[in-house]
């Protein structure tokens, strides 16, 4: 009779639990509370199950040892006095930094003043000089960045026109050899060299008002790539002039190929060096 009477609410609860987004509602409303007459039905097992789930989800801290139960004998000598575990003494010492300052306490706001009062102080002459040099460095490096990107564009144009020049001169069995790209390539090449040198000077001679230890970062990658690009630029200058001087000689094509490869490599190094700071 009673069982039949309980099946209605239990079924309702089960339906609600299934329809609810989580099973936590079952934990919040244990079935025992729904017993009208306080009887202990068969469904009292449910809170225990819920507790088991809680234990799985949350690791409870180990309960303090019961003073009434003796500690297990782990091989201690019989003469050894029994040690009863005592709770850890409460530490009343609070670090000075964590102590609320009187000002904040007096203010009544819930802020923490961990650093204490800060007094604005005047900058020394050395600090002012450093600040001024840092500003100069910032401006110099901004110009260095802009000029570097412009030089990268010039280098890309130089390599592209150089490729056209190579194809005009050597491609196929009957190349045009019109020389229509030669002047453009030369002008672009020298403009690139000038831009590269100027940009490099800006970077090299920018003031360094503070210590900059060498470490593996994007700055080091930029410097390594630009060092390789500098070697490429210098070799391209000599190789380009030498290639032009070999006009009419049989080895001009092989020299031009070396010039071409180093040019593309220089473009790759410079692009990588620029990308180190852009991305």
């Amino acid at each position: 009779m009673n069982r039949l009477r309980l099946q209605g609410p239990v079924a309702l609860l089960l339906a609600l639990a299934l329809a609810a987004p989580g099973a936590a509602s079952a934990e919040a409303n244990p079935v025992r509370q729904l017993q009208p007459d306080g009887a202990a039905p068969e469904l009292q097992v449910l809170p225990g199950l819920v507790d088991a789930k809680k234990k799985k989800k949350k690791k409870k801290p180990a309960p303090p040892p019961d003073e009434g139960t003796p500690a297990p004998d782990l091989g201690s000598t019989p003469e050894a006095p029994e040690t009863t575990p005592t709770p850890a003494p409460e530490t009343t010492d609070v670090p000075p930094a964590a102590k609320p300052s009187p000002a904040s306490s007096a203010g009544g706001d819930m802020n923490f003043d961990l650093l204490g009062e800060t007094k604005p102080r005047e900058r020394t002459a050395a600090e002012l000089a450093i600040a001024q040099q840092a500003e100069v460095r910032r401006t110099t490096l901004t110009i260095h960045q802009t000029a570097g990107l412009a030089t990268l564009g010039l280098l890309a144009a130089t390599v592209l026109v150089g490729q056209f020049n190579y194809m005009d001169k050597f491609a196929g069995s009957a190349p045009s050899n019109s020389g229509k790209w030669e002047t453009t390539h030369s002008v672009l090449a020298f403009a690139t060299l000038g831009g590269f040198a100027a940009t490099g000077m800006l970077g090299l001679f920018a003031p360094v008002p503070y210590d900059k230890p060498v470490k593996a970062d994007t700055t080091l990658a930029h410097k390594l790539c630009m060092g390789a690009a500098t070697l490429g630029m210098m070799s391209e200058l000599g190789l380009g002039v030498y290639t032009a001087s070999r006009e009419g000689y049989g080895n001009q094509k092989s020299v031009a190929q070396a010039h071409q490869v180093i040019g593309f490599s220089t473009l790759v190094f410079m692009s990588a060096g620029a990308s180190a700071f852009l991305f």
Partner: protein
Amino acid sequence: MVRLFGAATILLIAAGCQSDNSPVMRPGEDCMTCHCTGDSSCRASGLPWTAAGTVFGAYDSPVTGGVQGVHVMIWDALDAGVLLTTNEAGNFYTGEPLTPPLRVYIDYQGSDAGMLTQPTPVMIYGSGAAGKGVGCNGCHQAPDPTTCTNGNTLPTPPTPVGGGAGIPPLGRVAVPGASFPTCPGS
């Protein structure tokens, strides 16, 4: 700054595009007038040619009638050879050291021809040959392709033979069936 670089680049490129000194310059003229050494008239002394010229499709071709893609094979007295290819203006040139007299052959689309005469700078320029190479256009130039710069005259060239149409006449052509040396570099 970027605009300044861009404007400077455009100006430089625009200024640089106007150049008269290129491989296609002055077809049909005697290259050795400038591409020589040892004389103040040698304005292109930085690029002295040992042999140079222009290949035209016909004796009376205009200066724009140069033939592109003609292979010119030149062998010197020491059997050193060079293989040249005419550019889109018909010009060919080399600075490789060559010891005259030279043997000259041409190859164009499978047809070969060669000069009967072995030219030397003295034959072309006479006493003014110092510092000059073999300039083909020193003799083979319009309107008379048989009169050289120093007034020497060459025998009237025969009708081009050696494979039929398509061979630009050199003024001297080989007889049919002549054997030609292997192209340098082939």
